[in-house]
């Protein structure tokens, strides 16, 4: 954990001026160097980064492993996959993660599940960031009726129960259903969080001197918004971007768990967990539930650690 002088004082750091001199000689450092120095020290954040990279490689390596192991993700191994009652068989031989309830290889399906989760989460987060940042800056900067409308719209969406309306939407074939609809649902209910944060930041940035300076120079509002304010929002955008991704991953998994997310035969973690549910209460087929669940947990933990690390490195105000 990055130490700061204030750790020792029972009060705020030395009044009148910045914290006591940093390290060997007061050498000016660019924010990026400062960020990297703090981030490098934060082992938990590095561990998070490692988990995320591991999951991305898992997603990319899915077809490779599929060919090595020789089990296509939707191939039903009917003779060895399920027992006489149709229950999935435990791991044996080259099926190291065991079978699902249709005799398919869980290792390969879990890896393909990573693809679905990561693509949907990252694309949905991207869409959320674009809408959220744009409306956030608009509301924060223009204030007046624009701000009221956007804020009230944000309150509206935040008061609608995400899962209920998500399921209702996914039963229609709006946008042709499938992945596009799932991304729309997650993004539609997600952008208000980022919009609210960006609006808050823009409200405070708006008062900053450099904005007034740009104004006095006669820069058009569009320029101020996107050339002056936006660059200063990179830190919060990066932080909350990384923190929203895990929420979206869980969101997609929740929709699949309730049977309305990604449809078969594409593999998705939530869908696999839902299929494993009947066996769980009877203490059977632990592998069917454990591996997709662990994969989901590892991915979400990775992004959370990464997000926390970024937040501490980028704005160290909050002591760890």
């Amino acid at each position, binding site marked *: 954990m990055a130490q700061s002088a204030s750790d020792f004082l029972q009060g705020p750091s030395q009044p009148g001026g910045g914290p006591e001199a940093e390290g060997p000689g007061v050498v000016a450092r660019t924010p990026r160097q400062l960020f990297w120095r703090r981030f490098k020290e934060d082992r938990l954040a590095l561990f998070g980064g490692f988990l995320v990279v591991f999951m991305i490689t898992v997603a990319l390596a899915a077809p490779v492993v599929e060919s090595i192991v020789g089990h296509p993700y939707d191939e039903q191994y009917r003779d060895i996959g399920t027992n*006489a009652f*149709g229950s999935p068989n435990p791991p044996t031989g080259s099926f190291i993660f065991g079978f699902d309830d249709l005799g398919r290889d869980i290792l390969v399906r879990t890896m393909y599940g990573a693809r679905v989760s990561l693509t949907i989460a990252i694309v949905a987060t991207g869409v959320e960031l674009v809408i959220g940042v744009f409306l956030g800056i608009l509301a924060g900067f223009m204030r007046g009726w624009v701000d009221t409308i956007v804020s009230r719209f944000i309150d509206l969406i935040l008061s609608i129960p995400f899962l209920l309306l998500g399921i209702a939407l996914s039963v229609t074939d709006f946008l042709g259903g499938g992945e596009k609809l799932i991304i729309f649902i997650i993004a539609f209910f997600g952008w208000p969080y980022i919009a609210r944060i960006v609006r808050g930041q823009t409200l405070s940035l708006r008062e900053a001197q450099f904005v007034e300076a740009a104004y006095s120079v006669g820069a058009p509002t569009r320029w101020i918004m996107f050339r002056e304010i936006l660059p200063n929002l990179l830190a919060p955008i990066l932080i909350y971007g990384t923190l929203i991704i895990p929420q979206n991953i869980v969101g997609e998994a929740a929709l699949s768990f309730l049977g309305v997310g990604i449809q078969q035969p594409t593999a998705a973690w939530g869908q696999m967990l839902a299929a494993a549910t009947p066996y769980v209460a009877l203490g059977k*087929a632990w592998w069917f539930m454990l591996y997709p669940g662990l994969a989901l947990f590892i991915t979400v933990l990775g992004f959370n650690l990464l997000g926390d690390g970024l937040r501490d490195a980028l704005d160290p105000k909050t002591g760890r």
Partner: protein
Amino acid sequence: MKSSRLIKLFALLTVLMLVAAACGGGGSETGDTGDKRTNEDVTVSDELNPGGTLRIAGVSDVDYMDPASQYYTVSFFLSRGVFRTLVTYPGNVTDLAAQNELVPDLAESTGQSNEDFTEWSYTIKDGVTYGLKLGGEEVAGVTGEEIVCDDFVYAFERIFTASVGAGYPFYYDIIEGAKEFQAGDADSISGITCDGDKSITFSLSEPAGDWDFRMAMPAASPVPRAAAEKYDKKEDSDYDRHVVATGPYYIAEWTPGEQITLERNEYWDAETDEARLAYPDTVDWKLGFDNDVGVQKIQDNEYDLGLDVSPQGPALEEWVTTPELNERLLQEPSGCTRYLFLNTTIEPFDNQAVREAVNLAIDRENIKRVFGGPTTGPIATSIVPPGIDGHLPSEEFNPFETENMAGDMETAKQMFQEAIGAETWDEPIKLIGASDPPHDRIFESVRSDLEELGFTNIQGKTPKFPNQYTQFYSVPSSETAVGSSAGWCKDYQSAFTFLDPLFHGDNILESGNQNYAELNDPEMNRLIDEAAASPLGEEQTAAWEAANRYATETGVWIPWSWDNDLIAYSSENITNVYYFGFHSQVDWVNIAINSEQ
């Protein structure tokens, strides 16, 4: 926080979970169903002590309380104890064949018919009266009054009144004058005549050897004009909420979708009813259960009987492989066939060779296994299920035989490619299944077989059960090419109830159609009409067998299961539990509650 310590801690957590999990037993390999419990293991008695409450766990509610509108096994189940009919199925009879020998109920004896079965007459017993209406109030001029011939006249008039929306009028439109009455050209049905209050005669426009069976259906139960007329006058009759009981129980309380409570009907005289012993005082029927939760409640003896709740998937495996539970699982052929169907009006399924190829390609053994394995009943090889005359056992007739019915993809592919003159079929075809387990897995199994066969553009949809019927299968305009979650159960023991509605060309309707394959084959229609008209006995059976053979060879169906009914009950709480063919359930009116419950 040293991350190395974190990783150790994290690894420990996973190992802990694996150890706790791994020590459990895996799935059993054999799935043998050696010592299953059937009616032979049941000894019935009619001197058990009455009293107590029968607690039933169910999923779906009745479709209607009005006996005329009902057309659902769950509703027939209820009617057995609430509405009596002229003739009915015997009580306390465990032999399935013997259960088909109808006994008199409200009538003195079973139907007396002329030799060509076009006239049937009955005399109504004395001392059979109406009880309380739904909710427990008395109906002036009805409750306590004797059942008379006019009540049956009105009952059949109702069946042909639009506002009532009868469930199966096609069984009774052969009564003379019925069609005219339905069309409004006559103000009564000429074919039904009363001779005084107690004797009634039906004259039919065509012979019907199985008329008594049709009289044993709930729609044929008497309905007093005084109780129902004012409701039937409405645009959409709601007599449904005010039905008057004639059986040993009346409907004390009904919260749709949640709860039905039946109480003893004092106006019912046990002497006049040889089919129903009615041991319990009340029946507490809880609806809306999730299937697995219901099964768990029965396993824990919190509930006594599972109506449309039965062990499936992993729970079935547990019940069958655990001796104490296996003893409480009644298994009998249900007279139902589950099948895939191919719509003959949609290319390429209009081509007989393509249909035959699909019959060979589908892995019925895997569908059966995913459905729950051999316990759920044998793999079907033809249309008519066992227990119904016209049935052809697999050893005798199996036109699309493959090694343990797991499909023969090579020959199927060859036939398919010859038939369509191409490597694959790239046009889109609609495959409609259902989402509730195990139907979702059946859907996936069928989809992968069809893809392997050569269909490259399958558009799949899995609506929630039973929407696949109402929104797709029975709506021709939905252009459902292949249906993977279809099933049909006999109404009564004759093959007519199978082949006529499902294979006869005349029965293809614009909506509410049951002939999903929309097969309109003149030879098929001729065979069905001929069998229907043939007299009961050897001749009729041979005719139905021929029709069954022909229907199977058309390949429009890929039957994959002759279902066993799996009735889970609490042997600790109830006895005298035997399988009752007519309802594909147990005969609840003759169940007794153990005293120490």
